[in-house]
């Protein structure tokens, strides 16, 4: 008797608290928390605080922060949290490539509450950090196995940072060999933009290969682009089309042939765990996003954890420190003359290391493979449910199997009804389903990015292993319903959302939003409020 989404969709309404801006709450004099002040013996000995700060550095006007009692602050933020569709609360299938995996509550609790994790200073004597260092070391070992690489660094605190760290290693490698001519990096348009931007940050010129109808990069174009100026190829496989490039090893070989390194963006390895690895295809470096593949929480957009994996040859260039084990004690090695140096202060995001370690320990080799298999089943099942929805189409490589995600397009719907992916994303919220992620290239906009011309009105759902058949059915039913509405009552969709925490932001304002930075004081100034 569970709800059948074909006949009855969830009657959803987001919590709407209509909360004031925190800046406007409270009354002068209210306090949210008190702090431990200096004992009178101390103050009488050292004197006023103002005498301990150089006069010219004393703050003359107090910061214009609000003054709010604790009950009100707590209520305010609790209410705002209810107005947020976190992934452990909503149906996040739409967040494709951003993989919203279930974050087991047990690992969240242990890593955010246990004083043996939260109350550690990173510079404590190593003898007092043996537990956490053991987790680092063992997670490194595990990721060596999942990737097939020879060395792992857990210093990076995001996927982008891991790609940047990989670019730094590439740079240091070529420099160490006196090879200074290589100033180009090749990537593909459908690889995550960080594969272009992070090497560019390291000073590389970036050559971008365009996608072909086959959904995979064109080998000839690659070969044409490769040269003795190529430092490395940065690539994802599958890209968010979900089409696996079976010639990936040939691509790697072609790069190696010109002396370039190959870097695999395995941020999202949900469809690959236990099936294929960077090693088998011959890659020199790769990275994982623990927040996509190993179930660390996204935290509203970080903190995150990027695991950098490299071959033996590149190990000396990894960022400092390296977590070592001599059979008895775990330690941090800082004496690494070829290292690219520090990428992140201290030792990275230790609590996320703890969570990823925990999650893998829970699954083991069979479990990780189960993740991949179910992710791929889920995705292909969703495809069956979506494929006949009017107005929706699949880009690239019609008829080919997909792994963990697929890039769809609402182009036909837009052409026929004027309802585009932005409208649909707003409308989804009315059904209690998280807006889909268009891909890393959103919306229609003057400054329309290249990728958007290639797949416009994009939608990239990813029903990873955390979702049940019911969840997928519901997601598909919502899509079907919105398509129907677009043809029958397009205004309903265009004026969405109707059941969100807020009402629709009309397009001119929406453009304001995305082009204007903001704080409450700037807004008030702009609107002549106060």
């Amino acid at each position, binding site marked *: 008797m569970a709800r059948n989404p074909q006949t009855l969709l969830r009657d959803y309404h987001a919590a709407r608290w209509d909360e004031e801006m925190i800046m406007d709450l409270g009354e002068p004099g209210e306090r949210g928390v008190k702090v431990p002040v200096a004992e009178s013996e101390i103050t009488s000995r*050292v004197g006023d605080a103002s005498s301990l700060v150089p006069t010219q550095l004393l703050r003359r006007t107090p910061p214009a922060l609000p003054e709010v009692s604790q009950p009100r602050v707590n209520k305010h933020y609790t209410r705002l949290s209810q107005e947020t569709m976190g992934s452990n*609360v909503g149906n996040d299938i739409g967040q494709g490539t951003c993989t919203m995996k279930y974050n087991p509550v047990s690992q969240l609790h242990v890593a955010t509450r246990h004083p043996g994790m939260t109350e550690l200073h990173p510079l404590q004597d190593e003898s007092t950090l043996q537990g956490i260092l053991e987790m680092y070391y063992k997670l490194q070992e595990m990721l060596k196995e999942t990737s097939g690489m020879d060395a792992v660094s857990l210093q990076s605190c995001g996927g982008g940072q891991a790609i940047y760290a990989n670019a730094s290693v590439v740079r240091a490698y070529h420099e160490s060999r006196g090879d200074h001519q290589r100033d180009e990096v090749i990537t593909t348009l459908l690889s995550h933009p960080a594969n272009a931007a992070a090497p*560019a940050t390291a000073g590389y010129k970036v050559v971008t290969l365009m996608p072909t109808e086959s959904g995979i990069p064109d080998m000839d174009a690659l070969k044409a682009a490769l040269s003795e100026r190529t430092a490395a190829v940065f690539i994802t496989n599958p890209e968010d089309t979900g089409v696996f490039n079976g010639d990936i090893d040939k691509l790697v070989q072609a790069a190696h042939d010109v002396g370039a390194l190959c870097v695999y963006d395995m941020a999202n390895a949900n469809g690959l765990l236990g099936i294929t690895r960077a090693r088998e295809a011959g890659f020199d470096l790769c990275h994982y996003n623990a927040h996509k593949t190993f179930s660390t929480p996204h935290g509203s957009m970080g903190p995150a954890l990027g695991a950098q994996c490299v071959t033996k040859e590149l190990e000396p260039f990894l960022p400092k420190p390296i977590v070592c084990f001599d059979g008895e004690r775990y330690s941090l090695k800082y004496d690494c003359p070829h290292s690219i140096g520090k990428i992140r202060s201290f030792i990275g995001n230790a609590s996320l290391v703890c969570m990823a370690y925990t999650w893998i320990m829970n699954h083991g080799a069979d479990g990780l493979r189960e993740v991949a298999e179910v992710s791929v089943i889920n995705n292909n099942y969703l495809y069956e449910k979506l494929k006949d929805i009017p107005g929706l189409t699949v880009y690239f490589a019609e008829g080919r199997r997909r*792994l963990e995600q697929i890039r769809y397009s609402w182009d036909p719907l837009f052409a026929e009804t004027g309802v585009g992916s932005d409208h649909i994303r707003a409308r989804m919220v009315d059904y209690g389903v998280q807006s889909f992620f268009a891909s890393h290239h959103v919306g229609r906009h003057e400054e329309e990015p290249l990728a958007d011309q290639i797949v416009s009105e994009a939608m990239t759902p990813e029903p990873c292993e955390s979702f049940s058949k019911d969840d997928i059915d519901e997601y598909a039913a919502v899509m079907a319903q919105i398509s129907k509405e677009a043809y029958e009552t397009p205004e309903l969709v265009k004026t969405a959302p109707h059941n969100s925490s807020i009402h629709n932001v009309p397009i001119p304002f929406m453009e304001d939003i995305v082009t204007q930075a903001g704080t409450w004081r700037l807004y008030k100034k702009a609107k002549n409020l106060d």
Partner: protein
Amino acid sequence: MNEQNIVYPYIPNSVPAVKKEMLETIGVSSVEALFEDIPQHLRIKGKMDLPEPIHDEYSLMRHVKNLLSKNSNTSENLNFLGAGCYEHAVPAVCDEINGRAEFLTAYAGQTYSDHGKFQAMFEFNSLMTELLDMDFLALPQYDGPAAAASALRMAARLTGRREVLLPRSINPETLSLIKNYVHSVTDPINVVLVNIDGESGTLDMEDLKSKVSDNTAAIYIENPGYLGTFEPKAEEIGNIAKDKGAEYVVYCDPISLGIVAPPSHYGATIACGDLQALGMHMTCGGAQAGFIAGGDAERAAQLKDVMIGIADTQKQGEYGFAMAGVFNTSYFAREDCDEYTGSGTALWCITAGVYLALMGPKGMEEVGQSIVQKARYAADRISELEGVTVTFNSPFFKEFVVNFDGTGKSVEDINQALLGQNIFGGKDLSAELPELGQSALYCVTETKTQQDIDVLIDALKAVTQ
């Protein structure tokens, strides 16, 4: 695989019957068919060699807690380590809010689905810009050093110059990070270090003046510095930068800003620092978060990460939020950006917002006062010990360098002995700054009572004498 037909609690469709039904709908007879595009020679041979899993939650948690118990933590020990990661009081409301499943597990939801998250971030920006008295703030970066490094690249873009001046007293690890970040295959930024006055620990103005030039993209200072001291000539340094058309980048400690002037008040064009002090547990360094702020639209346009914008909805008095400046970031501009962006540390900015909202101006003032007084008390008492001196004579905020040369003991020995008394002594500086001799960087925050400090003094006395 999974021949035992194990059902995993976190993988609903691992139920064999369900999988079978789904495969039927897909129209294939086995999951293998879905992987047909992956050639056999690219497949992993056999099963991965991973530790035996612990399938049940209780045993797994026991295993993990056992490991965590192998650490000694700062609730059981008296901690005087700082150097960028600080033990401050964390109001429970901060834990409560960042532990709410909605915030903790959210990610890329937008205007309508994640309104609350955006409002919380927008409010953080609004609170933090009040604290900094500067108008523009990006979503936070990986950590303070990353923010500093990014600020220097901003400066290079703004000025079209490729040289930056940094104080020699900068944390060597920060320096290492910056150097890697401003390095470039094609067009690296040159890092020049400015000397420090040996007595005061503050910037050597003569050396600065001799090094600053029309090539200088930025003068960068830390206030308070890595070694704890305030930079009393901060304003003068800013004027020097201004005169040369350079950016003035100031790294500051946000928890000091209830009593200490924010960088904008003495001329900084870009301010940066780390948010960890504002409501985050140390978490072994896992709660660092770099903020970066600009004083005007020109600087704002150079921020590498997104900001949060506000607009009116159709309903009067109601607001919606979205990422602002996103088209300028590498999400859209890809390699046309000088810097990449990505998942940063949003949860910590929400938390820092909660912290500032709880503290208000009065709380920020009191915590600043408490820290500066307690730290001074500790330094005064320490300097009474025989053979022990406080190295610099300038005012400082919460950290100060203690020299043990007169005791004939190494910092390493002293710290080991302190550890035996459940005290985490200051960071050993002897390897990274040998010119300071056997010195350690002590940190005292509002979390230390007079009694805690007295316990330290007694222990130091016993250990050094």
